[in-house]
């Protein structure tokens, strides 16, 4: 081998060796890195293993805790298979139902349930299984091992695996105590409701029971005044009456307040003549204030005309309370009632009423108290008696109707009570009340010819009977509703005064019967005589078709007012009358009231031509003969006078001069009695004078009746 080659091999060997050493060094380093990496890996592995062990331990503990929880929970937790077999039940079941876990698991649920509940419970589980409702609660009784019935309330939830319901899990608990409490509560509620009904009945009865004798006491005291009592007796009767009146208002207030507090008062809107109601109220107090230096005025906005829809019964009560109050505290001066529209839009019409008196007034610091219950702030203490409920009731009544009330007063200067109520204007045709608008009449001879009084109480019969007799109004008595209905079929009355609480058939039923069957009295005014001042009774009276009500005990003036208001007004239905401007009738005899309109209507109806003819005949033929009567007196031609009176008497009635007809009848009667003839001359003279005065009225009537030229 050449040296060159040997050198080359040597160099190569040296390079290879160097490279090997280099590689070994690198590998050594790599091996060390690998060793370290391995160690680290081992360490990581150990750590991981520890973590797994820890987690497993925690899981075990958690499972144990969970199991302890299930075991310690008082609620029974169970699982049930789709076929209805228990697959798990928490051990507490033994404590509440007496069965062991082993007795439950693997047993069908129907074994623990009474027959009655098997079907509904089966349906319940089936629905849960098939419909998969999220969570549902139900209650049912289960039979415990010792045979008791334990009510179970349970929340059941389906367990799903891959969208398939595999079993139900339920949390159930013994709800027997609550169930028992519920049953007892229901029983208690029933008892309470019965007690409430009994209380209501008691109130109604008491109202009636107290008022009936009170009515008699007040009524009789009125009648006693008419028995020419001595001065002392009059004084006693006065005290008797005042005390009875006070007792009456006391009871009314208490009963009203009870009703209001129980929320039994409801607003019953209906169309009514607001201006008419104000006038009627004024009238009632005018009569009451008779002989006292207190005047009562009503002023209302001209826009208040026609009917308004609202609760007139409540409005009446509010006004009565406020005016009554004003009257009580005013010795001398005036009471002013005003009404004006303060706001009107399409829907509502707010009317502001005020009652102003010139009485003692209310001190400023007391004004906040007056609407409170049982508060009386009058300085004279006992002088003004009352329950102290009147204004509280008034406030409640205003507020029930969504209104507001306030007072302004100065001590010694009088008070003004102002309240605002919302009404709705009635369209002209909505009102179909039977009696039409009440027309006030001046007190005079009442055109009421026949009244039916329906009343079971003997004292009240006597009282009302005496009053009607005193006013010369014929009446028929019916002692209960059934008799009233029968009587109503027999003859026509001008009005029926109807008691509410009566045996056999009460006033409401009787009214419904009269209103709904065909009879001569189907549409005549029926006035409720209610011993109960309760507002809901009044509302009911209106609902069944009564026209108005009178709360017993009432004063003669109140009955008279009602009679006047609902007296037949047939004449007012005739064509409007024009009065001859040249005629100045005597103030006591306004032209409108001279002619007996009802009589005329009965005679001629709408046959104006016939009526005009009769009037003309009367003026042409009868008047000249009438004018001869005084002469016959002077001549003392009594037989001729008697014959003339007899002949002319009916002709006066033919032209509506009913009063003069009466007068002539009495003259005729006097002639037949051979009595003193001297007064007759004057009476005939007066009669002739009256006829002469009435001639323009009669002529005017012919003009009105004649067809237009």
């Amino acid at each position, binding site marked *: 081998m050449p040296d060159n080659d040997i050198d*080359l091999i040597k160099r*190569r060997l040296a*390079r290879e060796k*160097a490279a*090997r050493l*280099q*590689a070994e060094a*690198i*590998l050594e380093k*790599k091996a060390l890195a690998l060793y370290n990496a391995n160690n680290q890996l081992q360490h990581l592995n150990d750590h991981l293993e520890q973590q797994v062990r820890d987690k497993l331990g925690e899981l075990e503990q958690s499972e144990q805790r969970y199991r302890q929880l299930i075991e310690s929970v008082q609620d029974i937790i169970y699982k049930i298979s789709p076929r209805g077999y228990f697959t798990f039940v928490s051990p507490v079941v033994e404590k509440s139902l007496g069965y062991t876990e082993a007795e439950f698991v693997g047993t069908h649920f129907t074994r623990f349930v009474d027959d009655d509940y098997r079907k509904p419970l089966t349906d319940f589980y089936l629905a849960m299984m098939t419909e998969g409702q999220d969570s549902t609660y139900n209650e049912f009784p289960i039979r415990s091992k010792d045979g008791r019935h334990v009510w179970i309330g349970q929340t059941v939830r389906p367990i799903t695996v891959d969208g398939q319901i595999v079993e139900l899990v339920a949390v159930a608990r013994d709800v027997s105590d609550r169930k028992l409490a519920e049953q007892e509560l229901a029983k208690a509620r029933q008892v309470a409701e019965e007690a409430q009904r009994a209380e209501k009945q008691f109130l109604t009865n008491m109202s009636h029971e107290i008022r009936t004798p009170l009515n008699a006491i007040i009524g009789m005291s009125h009648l006693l005044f008419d028995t020419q009592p001595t001065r002392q007796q009059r004084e006693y009767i006065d005290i008797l009456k005042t005390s009875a009146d006070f007792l009456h208002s006391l009871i009314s207030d208490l009963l009203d307040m009870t009703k209001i507090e129980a929320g039994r008062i409801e607003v019953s809107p209906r169309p009514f003549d607001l201006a008419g109601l104000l006038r009627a109220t004024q009238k009632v107090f005018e009569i009451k204030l008779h002989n006292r230096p207190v005047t009562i005025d009503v002023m209302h906005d001209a826009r208040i005309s026609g009917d308004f829809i609202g609760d007139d019964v409540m409005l009446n009560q509010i006004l009565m309370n406020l005016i009554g109050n004003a009257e009580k505290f005013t010795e001398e001066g005036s009471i002013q009632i005003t009404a004006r529209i303060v706001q009107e839009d399409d829907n509502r019409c707010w009317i502001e009423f005020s009652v102003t008196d010139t009485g003692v007034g209310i001190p400023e610091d007391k004004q906040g108290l007056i609407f409170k219950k049982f508060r009386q702030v009058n300085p004279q203490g006992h002088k003004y008696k009352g329950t102290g409920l009147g204004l509280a009731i008034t406030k409640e009544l205003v507020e029930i109707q969504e209104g507001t009330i306030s007072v302004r007063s100065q001590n010694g200067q009088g008070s003004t009570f102002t309240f605002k109520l919302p009404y709705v204007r009635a369209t002209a045709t909505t009102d179909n009340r039977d009696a039409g608008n009440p027309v006030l009449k001046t007190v005079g001879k009442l055109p009421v010819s026949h009244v039916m009084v329906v009343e079971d109480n003997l004292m009240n019969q006597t009282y009302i009977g005496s009053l009607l007799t005193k006013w010369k109004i014929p009446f028929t008595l019916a002692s209960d509703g059934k008799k009233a209905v029968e009587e109503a079929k027999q003859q026509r009355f001008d009005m029926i005064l109807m008691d509410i609480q009566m045996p056999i058939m009460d006033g409401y039923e009787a009214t419904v019967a009269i209103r709904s069957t065909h009879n001569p009295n189907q549409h005549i005014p029926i006035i409720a005589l209610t011993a109960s001042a309760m507002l809901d009774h009044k509302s009911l009276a209106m609902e069944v078709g009564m026209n108005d009500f009178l709360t017993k005990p009432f004063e003669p003036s109140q009955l008279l007012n009602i009679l006047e208001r609902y007296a037949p007004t047939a004449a007012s239905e005739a064509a409007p009358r024009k009065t001859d401007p040249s005629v100045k009738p005597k103030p006591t005899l306004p032209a409108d009231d001279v002619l007996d309109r009802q009589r005329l209507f009965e005679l001629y109806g709408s046959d104006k031509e016939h009526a005009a003819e009769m009037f003309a005949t009367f003026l042409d033929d009868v008047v000249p003969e009438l004018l001869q009567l005084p002469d016959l007196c002077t001549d003392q031609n009594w037989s001729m006078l008697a014959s003339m009176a007899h002949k002319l008497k009916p002709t006066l009635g033919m032209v509506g001069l009913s009063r003069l007809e009466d007068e002539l009848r009495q003259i005729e009667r006097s002639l037949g009695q051979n009595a003193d003839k001297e007064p007759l001359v004057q009476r005939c003279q007066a009669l002739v004078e009256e006829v002469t005065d009435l001639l323009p009225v009669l002529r005017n009537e012919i003009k009105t009746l004649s067809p237009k030229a």
Partner: protein
Amino acid sequence: MKGIVFTELLEMVEDQYGYALVDTILDQSNLPSGGIYTAIGTYDHAEMVTLLHSLSQHTTTPVHELLRAYGRYMFGSFTRNYYQFIERSTSAFSLLNSIQHYIHVEVRKLYPDAELPHFAMEQPSENHLKMYYQSERKLSDFAYGLIEGCLAHYGETATIRKTELTADGSQVLFDIVKD
């Protein structure tokens, strides 16, 4: 630069020209490593440039041809030493497509300090592949040889068109269309 690139180059020179040429270029080039290379070591890139120039002079072959030939040679070496990377692919395109996101990823796990070129791939059709080469080492001809070696390994033939995208040769497009 990984030692395997040096050892395989010297292996190829010995195969084709004998160890005497290896000895000569190692002796003549003043190399910082003293010409001692091991496949698992890491050496300065500049030494490779020196060796290639020296080899080019002695063999009167241009450097780019030497590199291309070396690429082809290297692929053969890869098939023996790194068979697990290659057997996963059943075709040349499939292997070329796996370089960037599989082979280079695995190489970095073995040699965290390895400096590898970046390939962006585009395959307009089944038989058409575009490889965008990018490397500061500017050894696109080495890559060229490797692609050729790959095609040869799978028994496939294709027309490879090489386009320099930058003047310095750091970005090159290989447009490969299978025949």
